[in-house]
């Protein structure tokens, strides 16, 4: 890609390298967007995200909600005639947004952190405590109370976590993969 601005080039190269996707090949056929049901609820279509990356628009891309609302369904990549797996690009962009402190969808990122903390301490997610912690931290206390209680009554939300034996090993994996 030719750029007039070194920062823009740098951003493009970073995304390309981190996502391992041939982003430069996108010719805006929009097949990805026509199959994407998630970004109907967010700010950019997947092809727009790719185009913005091609143009080195760091702020706009990292601040977008689309990268978080993407549900990683992989429809876009499966259909892309140029073999661009946009879901992988979205993941790379989320990591970069976190590193840059530009997380648009704070609750989604909070959910991921809460989830992974649960895995780090037990080796498995303990859904009950994970949901409670998420609810408290996000301040969204009362939605889903009814389903939550119903699941609890049906024995689907166990009170105690199942702790695996090799927790040391799991902590190790977390530590060694930490940025």
């Amino acid at each position, binding site marked *: 890609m030719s750029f007039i601005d070194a920062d823009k080039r740098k951003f493009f190269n970073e995304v390309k390298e*981190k996502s391992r996707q041939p982003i430069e090949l996108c010719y805006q056929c929009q097949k990805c967007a026509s199959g994407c049901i*998630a970004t109907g609820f967010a700010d950019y279509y997947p092809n727009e995200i790719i185009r913005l990356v091609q143009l080195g628009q760091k702020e706009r891309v990292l601040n977008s909600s689309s990268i978080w609302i993407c*549900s990683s369904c992989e429809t876009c*990549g499966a259909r892309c005639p140029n073999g661009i797996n946009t879901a992988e690009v979205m993941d790379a962009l989320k*990591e970069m947004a976190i590193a840059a402190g530009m997380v648009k969808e704070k609750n989604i990122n*909070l959910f991921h952190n809460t989830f992974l903390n649960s895995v780090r301490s037990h080796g*498995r997610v303990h859904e009950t405590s994970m*949901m409670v912690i998420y609810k408290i931290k996000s301040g969204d206390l009362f939605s889903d109370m009814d389903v939550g209680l119903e699941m609890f009554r049906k024995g689907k939300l166990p009170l105690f976590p199942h702790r695996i034996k090799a927790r040391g*090993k*799991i902590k190790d994996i977390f530590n060694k993969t930490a940025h």
Partner: protein
Amino acid sequence: MKLSYFPGCSLGSTAKEYDKSARIACQALGVELVELKDWVCCGATSAHSTNHLLSIALPSRNVALAQEAGMDLAIPCSACYSRVKKADHVLRHDGELRKEIESIVDFKYNGKINVVSLLEALVSQVGVEAIAKKVQKPLKGLKVVCFYGCLLVRPPEVTNFDNTENPMSMDNIVKALGAETIQWSYKTDCCGANLGLTSTKVVQGMVNRLIEAAKEVEAMAIVTACPLCQSNLEMRRQERGTELPTFFFTELIGLALGLPDAKKWFNLHLINPNPLLQSLSLAD
């Protein structure tokens, strides 16, 4: 035959009925599922959204355990399946990353075991005809749509089983059980996955679209192979009545094979499937 079994976190909680029905249905079909000892969570969307290396390393630990057990690894949850399958794909094809992962997880990858979805295991190891032969109570009159969701078939270069745009494996099993499957064009759409808790509105939009489409083709129920799809489809729709319950395909196998436990699973659903089954004389 014996397979290693990785149930994943949801099958111990919100999708208990999937775990129970999977184990019992497999047993009845002559497949022994041996739970992977001390398995670890696959990291799900949260790992791959925030830390690529972790998202490969965590499920690789399960690949290592399955390798130790020496049996192919069958996974019922589509989300877990997709993460472990992806890790196995990376270990198999990316030499550089493999070395890094081997040192992080502390094992040596030998590529000898295969990672398969439980659906694939049943189709390829037992076979649709063999399943049909075991049917005691054909699911006559039951008209359903099969919902594969995202991750059983995508990305195609990784999953490599069944058709990406029009998968048929679950339809074929359900037909073998005596039910009717209706074709619809939403088979591999997304249910909203783990956005359910954080972006409820988005998921409601996605789920309602699916429910409307299923009603349009006059399905009586939806069949899935994924705990996340099942709970979103039952939990995130506009109104929760008794109509259009969502079954796990293993529950339908259990029902058609006449396994006595089936009743207990159905009581765990948020949308009670009993009225539908009773109206077709498939349950008492």
